[in-house]
């Protein structure tokens, strides 16, 4: 990762250095005077210093805007004006401007959509000198460029510089040659050369003056196929942060065309939905649907020029309406999770793993580890480091196992997500058993060994290392129900990716989880921060044991919720019996008979496993009325159709996804959703609340989580009059202020402060 950061820094420095290109006098100018500050710089650049007649010289104007100011694309959109370049070059033909792919700007709550560039753009045109040209020729350009931030300032540039025409001589690339190449990569190219299939769909057979219409642009990347054979299709992703910005329309004059959404077509690909309006006085000759696309396909970004037929008809002519549900924007929200590059996902996973250490589920384990360190303090550094490595190995091994399980279950078609194992009552019971045993060991009831004699100090020797490994496993197991911030996105990304990516992401989480402890072990100055061992440690040990028992209470509660109170009672009885068995084992351990200890240990493990299998866990869950806790935010059961219906009624909507085993969810629900101010704000604005309970498996909830790039709970969505198409997605750790702010943002009649 540091290497990556370094590379980014280098690239940034290189960019800064490039921006300061020197150009000859006359080829640079400032314009767009904003009360003394010029907002636009123009530089006339050439890709050759010398060129032969007939060869192509790229001539371009590099526009550099003040931060936050922008210039427009060839279609400026609903406001603004495109830059206009007028070239004057003696004895040469000048081709059209190659417009790089633009950004989309939305003003006044998307009432005004425009297209353009911030920071810097190179607008280049090919120049060809006719035969007969020779010697030094002046390349001259006059440009009208409107530059806007909130206000707009028309700028005017008059630039010129010489170029040598060398008939029969050698052409000579200029210092800016690479810059032209770089920008040309961002210029959309016709689709012919690429293995992409573009298709335009319309809501009617032809569009007439005065018509309002819907359309869609479908992008597929498939080859082969046909009768009986399945086409080989690769995924096509939008290359823009906002999926619907991947297509920028450039409609013929008299037609307004706007992107309404992006969705996934039934075959791998991308579908951009559009709405259009034809001016009553627009001509009705056939025209083309043009625009620029930015896609990621097969791992690389490509910019594609769209040029498809757009059939027209005269006003009043008979046209056939075409019913096609794919022309509508995605139902209730963007069906696109933001596309995340792999390295970002890995980085997020690592960060998420780090933060997991602070989550209530993992903190006790980490505390036990640090406490173990204090015991180890008298040992050499090498021994301490070995423990760190063993713990890390435990974490990574369980992460790898988890990744393998996820991949296998996914291949089997199961609908699973992060924390899925807590949807399995048997798993919950097993973890509760492990925790009880672990707590008893902390209480000193027994020790983790099957051989004779007291180990001089806990932690030394192979047994100690094994224990560190085991604690690593435990940390992972306990960590999963706590989705840390950052983790949701990374894991969501993993669940939607290949098996290799799943493994990579999970291991990155593991590294993040293990890192703090590993560092404490590895860095001598950090290890010194660990307190000295003393009698207080015995007390701490027991206190931590109780913390683990508290976790068992939580697990028992989860099981009660998902499998009913009978199952819960059975689990508690089992745990009680297990504890008694462990106690007996502990008593034997204090004796010196090796055979008895071994036999008792084996018997105990076998009985524990058999008992676990025998637990009646498939009992009926508590009735609905029973499951709703008192301070729980009441909500209708989540269904996508229910949310859509509420939005159609014009009601603001709050959807929350939770699970009984998700501690982060419960913390949020208690501290934020249970807050009086939150309740009042929701009620006052007439929010309809939907609750998606993922305690048990649910395909619809899993799909909805996946739509937002999540593989687990919690997820909080706020839809309102100002956020119908795309809900506000709240972070995984809520605060009251943040929540009220989001409500206010979505439904502005909500008072932000109460």
């Amino acid at each position, binding site marked *: 990762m540091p290497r990556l950061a370094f590379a980014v820094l280098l690239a940034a420095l290189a960019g800064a250095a490039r921006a300061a290109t020197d150009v000859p006098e006359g080829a640079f100018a400032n314009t767009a005077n904003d009360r003394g500050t010029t907002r636009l710089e123009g530089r006339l650049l050439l890709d050759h210093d010398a060129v032969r007649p007939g060869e192509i010289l790229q001539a371009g104007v590099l526009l550099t805007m003040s931060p936050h100011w922008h210039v427009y694309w060839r279609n*400026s959109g*609903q*406001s*603004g*004006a495109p830059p*206009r370049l007028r070239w004057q070059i003696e004895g040469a033909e000048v081709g059209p401007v190659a417009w790089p792919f633009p950004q989309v700007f939305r*003003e*006044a*709550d*998307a*009432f*005004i959509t*425009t297209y353009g560039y911030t920071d810097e753009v190179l607008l280049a045109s090919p120049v060809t000198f006719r035969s007969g040209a020779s010697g030094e020729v002046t390349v001259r350009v006059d440009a*009208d460029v409107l530059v*806007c931030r*909130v*206000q*707009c*300032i*028309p700028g005017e540039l008059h630039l010129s510089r010489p170029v040598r025409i060398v008939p029969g001589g050698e052409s000579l690339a200029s210092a800016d040659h690479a810059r032209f190449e770089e920008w040309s990569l961002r210029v959309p190219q016709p689709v012919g050369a690429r293995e992409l299939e573009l298709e335009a769909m319309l809501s009617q057979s032809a569009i007439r003056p*005065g018509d*309002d219409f819907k359309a869609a642009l479908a992008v597929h990347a498939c080859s082969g196929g046909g009768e009986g054979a399945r086409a080989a299709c690769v995924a096509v992703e939008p290359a823009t942060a906002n999926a619907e910005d991947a297509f920028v329309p450039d409609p013929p*004059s*008299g037609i307004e065309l706007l992107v309404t959404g992006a969705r996934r077509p039934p075959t791998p690909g991308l579908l951009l939905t559009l709405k259009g*309006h034809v*001016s*009553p*006085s*627009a001509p009705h000759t056939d025209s083309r649907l043009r625009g620029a696309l930015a896609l990621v396909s097969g791992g690389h970004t490509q910019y594609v020029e769209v040029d498809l037929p757009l059939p027209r008809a005269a006003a009043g002519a008979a046209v056939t309406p075409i019913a096609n549900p794919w022309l509508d924007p995605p139902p209730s929200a963007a069906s696109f999770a933001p596309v995340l590059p792999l390295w970002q996902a890995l980085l997020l996973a690592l960060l998420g793993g780090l933060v997991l250490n602070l989550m209530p589920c993992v903190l006790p384990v980490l505390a036990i580890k640090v406490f173990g360190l204090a015991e180890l303090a008298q040992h050499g550094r090498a021994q301490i480091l070995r423990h760190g490595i063993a713990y890390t190995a435990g974490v990574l091994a369980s992460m790898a196992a988890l990744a393998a399980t996820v991949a296998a279950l996914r291949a089997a078609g199961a609908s699973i997500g992060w924390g899925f194992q807590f949807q399995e009552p048997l798993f919950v019971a097993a973890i509760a058993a492990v925790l009880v045993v672990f707590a008893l060991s902390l209480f000193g009831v027994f020790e983790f060994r099957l051989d004779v004699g007291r180990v001089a100090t806990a932690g030394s020797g192979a047994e100690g290392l094994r224990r560190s490994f085991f604690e690593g496993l435990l940390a992972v197991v306990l960590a999963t129900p706590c989705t840390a911030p950052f983790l949701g996105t990374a894991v969501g990304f993993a669940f939607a990716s290949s098996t290799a990516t799943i493994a990579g992401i999970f291991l990155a989480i593991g590294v993040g989880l293990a890192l703090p402890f590993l560092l404490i072990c590895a860095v001598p100055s950090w290890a010194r921060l660990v307190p000295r061992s003393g009698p207080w440690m015995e007390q701490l040990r027991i206190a931590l044991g109780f913390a683990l028992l508290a976790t068992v209470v939580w697990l028992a509660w989860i099981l009660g919720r998902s499998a009913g109170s009978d199952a819960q009672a059975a689990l508690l009885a089992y745990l009680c019996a297990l504890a008694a068995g462990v106690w007996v084992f502990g008593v034997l351990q204090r004796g010196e008979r090796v055979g008895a200890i071994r036999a008792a240990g084996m018997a105990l493990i076998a009985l524990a496993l058999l008992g676990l299998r025998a637990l009646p866990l498939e009992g009926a869950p508590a009735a609905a009325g029973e499951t709703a806790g008192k301070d729980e935010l009441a909500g209708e059961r989540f269904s996508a159709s229910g949310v859509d219906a509420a939005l159609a009624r014009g009601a603001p909507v709050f959807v929350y996804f939770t699970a009984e085993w998700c501690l982060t969810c419960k913390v949020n629900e208690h501290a934020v959703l249970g807050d009086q101010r939150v309740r009042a704000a929701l009620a006052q604005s007439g929010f309809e609340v939907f609750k998606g309970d993922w305690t048990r498996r649910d395909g619809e909830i899993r799909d909805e989580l996946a739509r937002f790039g999540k593989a687990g709970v919690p997820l909080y969505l706020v839809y309102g*009059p*100002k956020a119908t198409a795309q809900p506000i997605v709240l972070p995984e750790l809520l605060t009251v202020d943040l929540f009220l702010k989001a409500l206010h*943002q979505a439904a*502005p*009649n909500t008072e932000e402060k109460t």
Partner: protein
Amino acid sequence: MKRTALFVAIAAASLLGAVKPVEVGQTVPDFHAPDQDGVDHKLSQYRGHAVVLEWTNSGCPFVERHYSAGDMQKLAAAMGAKDVVWLAVNSTYDNTPADTKEWMKSQNFSYPTLQDPDGKIGHLMGARTTPHMFVIDAKGILRYRGAIDDDQYGRSSAPKNYVDSAVHALFASTTPDPAETQSYGCSVKYGTN
């Protein structure tokens, strides 16, 4: 207090944002707004007259260009002579009647400027730029929407004025051609949060 006002404006704008603007050929729903002197103008009170709506913002260089050259004032005066009602509309969120009065004085014109700081009329009409021109016929039907002329860079020696030609078409009982053009200029500075 100011916060509350902004709040209401945002709420109104958000609700209106969902309303589809009037299309050419449709009857313009009635609206009313005070001008810079507080005199209320109702669209329906001008039934029987053609009405030109001009979206304006004195801080926009495109508007300034048309005013400092005197084009807008001259066109409005010529229209006035034909009994056409000319109403400027300012939907800039922070514009005040005093600002408008000062601008009118400096640019030497007297037709009313409707005060629309909450963008209500702007959203109703689909005004997106300044200038953005609308020609409504004597029956209240929108007949032209778009740019003032075909000279977005201000470099043409003989620009074609679309508003002038649209009004001429109305007097000749023909359909304006073009009836819709892509307007150019600054975006209307609607209030947002």
